[in-house]
């Protein structure tokens, strides 16, 4: 009985509640503010830099002859969103991004799973995957256009080639780095074959897989932008088409608006992956609580 009580006492000492927990609403508010202010600061810094550049002067050539400052640029962005083709262009581009990324995910997972399970394939296919990853995706476009013509398929093809290797590599790395001790524990429990994958190896590889997905998104988004500028499908408006049009008409104000939209979409999606990554690492106790 004495052991029992001592043990309970020790447990409570080790995991006891923190003193002075703030209210849930207060904690939520503080966290939301903590996450928001660096982003607001970043936006302000960009706007200030933009304005300073706009006001700058190089050898008698003033930047304000070449481009607009935020004061004119932001209303243009607002105007394009409300009245122009920008919204429908964003829709087309996002649809391609989603479809292309989904295809990459499918291809990457299938290839990654096969390569990870069959060791002889590892050396051969592994180096091909890494080779594909280092290849700049824009170099694929001539090949893709010859193969598919100026079509969505050409763009999707390049997105998949650009981003599926990252997915496959993430999965392979995750499977490879499943801690051997956990594997031993799982085998002693009687996890074998499919159940070993389902309950141990796949959950264990999730953090590396998410990292691969995040990298794959960056590759996919870049490939898509390059693709939309190079491969213009007749009659379809997209962010790439708008940018190309602005270039033809020397409309730098509109080009800046489109670029801001591209930047925001990229940052927002990347932020979602970061959030997922943090949530998973937090659940597994992989975050240094002092550093958060």
């Amino acid at each position, binding site marked *: 009985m004495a*052991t*029992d009580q*001592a*043990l*309970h006492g*020790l*447990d409570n000492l*080790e*995991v006891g509640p923190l003193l002075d927990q703030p209210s849930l609403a207060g904690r939520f508010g503080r966290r939301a503010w903590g996450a928001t202010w660096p982003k607001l600061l970043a936006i302000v810094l960009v706007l200030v830099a933009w304005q300073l550049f706009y006001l700058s002067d190089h050898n008698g050539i003033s930047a304000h002859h070449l481009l607009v400052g935020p004061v004119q640029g932001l209303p243009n962005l607002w105007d394009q969103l409300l009245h122009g083709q920008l919204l429908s262009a964003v829709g087309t581009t996002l649809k391609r991004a989603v479809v292309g990324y989904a295809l990459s995910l499918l291809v990457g997972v299938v290839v990654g799973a096969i390569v990870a399970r069959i060791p002889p394939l590892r050396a051969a296919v592994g180096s091909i995957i890494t080779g594909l990853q280092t290849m700049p995706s824009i170099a694929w476009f001539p090949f893709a256009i010859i193969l598919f013509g100026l079509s969505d398929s050409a763009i999707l093809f390049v997105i998949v080639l650009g981003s599926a290797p990252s997915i496959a590599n993430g999965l392979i790395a995750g499977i490879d780095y499943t*801690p051997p*001790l*956990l594997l*031993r*524990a*799982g*085998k*002693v*429990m*009687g*996890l074998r074959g499919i*159940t070993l994958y389902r*309950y*141990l190896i796949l*959950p*264990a590889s*999730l953090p590396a897989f998410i990292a691969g997905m995040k990298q794959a998104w960056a590759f996919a988004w870049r490939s898509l932008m390059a693709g939309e500028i190079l491969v213009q499908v007749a009659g379809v408006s997209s962010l790439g088409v708008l940018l190309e049009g602005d270039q033809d008409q020397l409309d730098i104000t509109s080009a800046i608006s489109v670029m801001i939209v591209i930047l925001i979409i990229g940052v927002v999606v990347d932020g979602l992956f970061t959030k997922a990554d943090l949530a*998973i690492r937090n*659940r*597994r*106790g*992989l975050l240094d609580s002092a550093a958060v």
Partner: protein
Amino acid sequence: MSISNTQATPPAAQPGASAIPGTGVPGASEPAEAAPAIDLTEVSKAYRTGRGELLALDGVSLQVAAGEFVCIIGASGCGKSTLLNLVAGLDQPSAGTVETGGRRVGLMFQEPALFPWLTAGRNVEMALRARGVPREVRRDRTAELLETVRLGGFGDKRPHELSGGMRQRVAMARALAQDADVLLMDEPFGALDAMTRDLLHDELERICAERSLTVLFVTHNVREAARLGDRVIVLSSRPGRVIGEYPVPRHGQRRIDSGEVAQMAAMLTDRLREEMGRHGN
């Protein structure tokens, strides 16, 4: 119930109870029983390494009776972990036989090796699921097992939210969830502080008695071995051979700081130092 070491015993070694005159309980006085729970006969294990073969275990014979608590001590390189892997069926011996008579074997490591993405309760439940226990009973069994290791209210905590000692108890509940008759423990308390370890010794003793478990317990800590074991086996290093077997006298509840345990530990330490000295030149 005895150790037979058919390898040539080094002349310095004095195996058996004779090494502790006065306190030894002669092995012969134990009642003759049915087949042992763990039966290793002439087990050898060699590993292929870059520079040739490494003999980890050399002709180890060891019987553990059902319900017996046997501690194994030895210096580095005595193949203790190899021995447990063989009994757990995670590895095959190069020669000799390992018999557990179809008993379920649970294994605990120095680290708890819990799945970090599951809560404490789910970790225990995973072992039930792997055994094919139906979903309806899993929840109750899990709660019961957590209660057994006195972690009733902590099922929803994740491993990283628990202390080292608590994680190790979750690992124990998980091993028990395999409905193991045989518990193999590889320095399970090695990473814990002395106070926690002391409490967990009491807990382990209680649980083993309640469930009449057979335990093979590997440790570096001679006091721990003297505190817990019904019998202590000393292994030599490189290769691992049984060089001594010491029954531990039982006079009621033992404590880590009792005179008996200290005396036994001192004797075991001397034996180990002698063995280490053999590798000194």
